[in-house]
């Protein structure tokens, strides 16, 4: 898993790529989000376009990030789910938990 971070206005976008699975260093994602929250960041987008594999632990990791953000009064939204990830989140009812967007402009606009 790789993460690179960028700012668009007051929104932080995290471009995540690779695998989010057990065994990969998924704590990295959680820690990155925690650091942002600690620094007062309230608007976070995870761009998952280049996540080519995710398993149930990876889903749990995304849920943890969401829960932590929520508890700090911040918003964490998901951008560019792959077809497989969307299917997985539909089955596990996580689409009801997350706000998801199919393009960056809409994700950004949703914070306005």
């Amino acid at each position: 898993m790789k993460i690179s971070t960028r700012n668009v206005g007051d929104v932080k976008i995290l471009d995540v790529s690779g695998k989010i699975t057990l065994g990969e260093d998924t704590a990295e994602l959680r820690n990155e989000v925690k650091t942002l929250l600690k620094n007062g960041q309230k608007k976070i987008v995870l761009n998952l376009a280049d996540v080519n594999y995710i398993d149930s632990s990876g889903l749990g990791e995304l849920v943890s990030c969401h829960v932590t953000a929520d508890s700090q009064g911040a918003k964490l939204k998901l951008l560019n789910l792959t077809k497989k990830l969307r299917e997985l989140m539909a089955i596990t009812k996580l689409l009801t938990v997350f706000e998801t967007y199919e393009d960056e402009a809409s994700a950004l606009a949703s914070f306005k």
Partner: protein
Amino acid sequence: MKMAATNAIHMDLLTDLRYLDLVDQVSHSVTKVMGFDEDRIYWIGMSVREGVINAMLHGNQMDIGKRVVVRFEMAPSSLAVSIHDQGRGFDPACVPNPVAPENLLKPCGRGLFCIKSFMDDVSFNRQPDGMEIRLLKRLASE
């Protein structure tokens, strides 16, 4: 003679997560030669992987001295995968439902649910020497 039309692959592995990719690759090769489509190859692979993770993590408690046996039985119209660990076993009826509202925000507990969603049949056999979980996928399933 009953087994005559079946090909089988049997993997006897140490409890070590670095074998997950090996199991994954074997699953992909097996389902591919059987004629499953790309989507199903992916979901079967994920299910087998989740099963093996559970066997190593919850079953064998990551004790590298304990073994996980994965068996692929390639029948003409279906694939059966059994995953056997050397742990104390569990009662699947006691596993919380991860899509119940009170569990939706939990960080874990989605593995078995995913397996059940993607496979046609899943059975659990608690045996004296460990837990066996058996997954079935039919070639003709929708």
